């Protein structure tokens, strides 16, 4: 936008001066150039996705003969057999259950802790907050092997809870770091009024503060859910029986197990992308806002 007025000025002044005459031409070139760049971005991001989805409609023989071709004829068989198999749905259900538990725990416990850290004054409060904030610096992948050993000692291997609990714990830092300033910004007069009316602090928390914090709660829920949904390493270490596998683990396993049946891998991969992409389309404002907000709250 700003390019137009800057370059139009000198251009209008005198097309006869060659040095200046170059400018309007470049200004006009910027617009097609940006559309060209936009087209390139679209191609680079979307073609791989489309290739997988469309590949699922082909047979392995077709895929081998011409990897970049279109289906001829279109085959529904790959998608049908994946959708009819128990594996895909089982993986999907496991992912959903684990993500739901992890999100519920992280947001529930995180909101309680954030409330305490935001609206009570007590000795050591900033110390507790710092402890949680430092958790942001703990890379989950690095901790995965130690967590595995802990779960092993506790006899919690191969259980959905064994994955959900650590994931909830690792979601606590960003939950608290996002929620505390939000809860703190809610005017103290509201709390005074509630307490004059005889409400306890806990009642104020449940009845007034939580409903008012809904936007922030939604944001952290989406972040926690997506993080858990996409996790691979911890489930990979903890689960040994196929019936416990999550979707990311299932995709990777399917790919290595059925390496001969390429078309089926295409279909399985395409189907595994759908929940994430669909969820993203529904919650994109929350995801984008949450990530920017998280970055903002780390930096200030």
């Amino acid at each position, binding site marked *: 936008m*700003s390019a137009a*007025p*800057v*370059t139009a000025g000198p251009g209008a002044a005198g097309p006869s001066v060659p040095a200046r005459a170059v400018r309007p031409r470049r200004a006009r070139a910027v617009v097609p150039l*940006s559309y060209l*760049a*936009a087209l390139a971005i679209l191609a680079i*991001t979307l073609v*791989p996705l489309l*290739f*997988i989805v469309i590949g699922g409609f082909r047979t392995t023989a077709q895929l081998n003969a011409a*990897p*970049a071709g279109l289906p001829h004829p279109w085959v529904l068989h790959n998608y049908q057999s994946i959708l009819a198999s128990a594996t895909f749905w089982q993986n999907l259900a496991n992912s959903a259950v684990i993500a739901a538990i992890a999100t519920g725990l992280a947001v529930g*416990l995180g909101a309680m*802790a954030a409330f*305490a850290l935001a609206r*009570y*004054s007590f000795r050591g*409060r*900033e110390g*507790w907050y*710092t402890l*949680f*904030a430092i958790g*942001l*610096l*703990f*890379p989950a992948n*690095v*901790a995965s*092997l*130690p*967590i595995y*050993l802990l779960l092993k000692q506790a006899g919690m291997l191969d259980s959905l809870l064994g994955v959900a*609990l*650590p994931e909830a*714990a*690792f979601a606590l830092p960003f939950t608290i*770091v996002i929620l505390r*300033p939000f809860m703190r910004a809610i005017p103290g007069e509201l709390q005074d009024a509630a307490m004059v009316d005889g409400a306890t*602090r*806990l009642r104020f928390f449940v009845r007034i503060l939580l409903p008012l914090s809904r936007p922030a709660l939604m944001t952290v829920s989406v972040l926690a859910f997506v993080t858990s949904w*996409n*996790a*691979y390493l911890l489930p990979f270490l903890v689960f040994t029986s196929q019936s416990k596998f999550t979707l*990311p683990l299932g995709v*990777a396993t399917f*790919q290595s197990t059925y390496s001969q049946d390429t078309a089926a*891998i295409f279909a399985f991969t395409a189907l*595994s*992308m759908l929940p994430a*992409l669909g969820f993203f*389309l529904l919650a*994109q404002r929350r*995801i984008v806002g949450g990530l*920017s907000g998280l970055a903002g*709250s*780390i*930096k*200030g």
Partner: protein
Amino acid sequence: MSRLTSAPAAAGTAAAGATPSPGPAPRRPRLALPLRLSRKHAELTLLLAPAVALFVLFVLLPICIAAYYGLFNWSGYGPLSDFTGVHNYRLVLSDPVFRGSLLHNVIIAVLSLLVQLPISIALALLLNRPMRGGTFLRLAVFAPYVLSEATTAVLWLLILQPGGFVDQVMRAAGLGGLIHPWLADPSIVLYTLFAVVTWKYIGFGIILLLAGLQGIPAELREAAAIDGASAWQTTRRITLPLLGPTIRIWAFLSIIGSLQLFDIVWIMTIGGPANASSTMVTYMIQNGFRSLEFGYGSAVAVILFVVSFVFALLYQRFALRRDTAGALTGAVG
């Protein structure tokens, strides 16, 4: 905004809150005070204890016990009896494969800064101007970021198969001479993986930078334009410096991500061929989990933890400190 003011306010209220224990606050009714204090204490315990317990149990405790396990030669079964002191730690640090893995992590991190950052900035500037289909473009660019790394890895495995999609397209474009065994050639496998990582994460950088751009008042650019600055000058002298905090936080997240890179590498190459694409975390899983050397694996985990933690603290201290105080800069730096 509230965050800016929260730090001093917090210090004030914390100090005020500390007073009740030695002497009763005069404004409160005397009889109710002990009751109220114990009630507040109970409420705080109720609110904080569950989160603290979960956090300590699954975030802090594992790395502490790993530091202990690392002192033993331990296959994961039976008691910890074979105490070897810092032997494991020394072994990890002197293993050329581990050093190679660390180098690979660093290469990915440096490439991210050199390649992803300029592309992200350029695309963010492009997407920041109103254009037809801009919303759709933003969605499309961000789509790969929401896929799991596992799905991304399988997707690119399929695309990069020898004689597969990429090879066929390149041949059709007359670039057949450039075709390589993308994942099997030790000299290029790391760069192939970097390309996949870039495909997946570039949208995140763009979204972050777009949010940063939106925070720059349009008046600044307009004023510069009126003063006769060219579009390039405005971008160079006004937009980019004001994006500084966003760029620094992106770099931080990008480097931390590079240091713990695992899923994509593991699924696509298992760190191979011949460790040419191993990362520190694939090294840990390969040499600790896979080979049932849990003492050794624990030592790797602790070293990894120290590497990323020290980096994070140094970065907070030196790169982020000049930005406004936030959760980490206020607390840690």
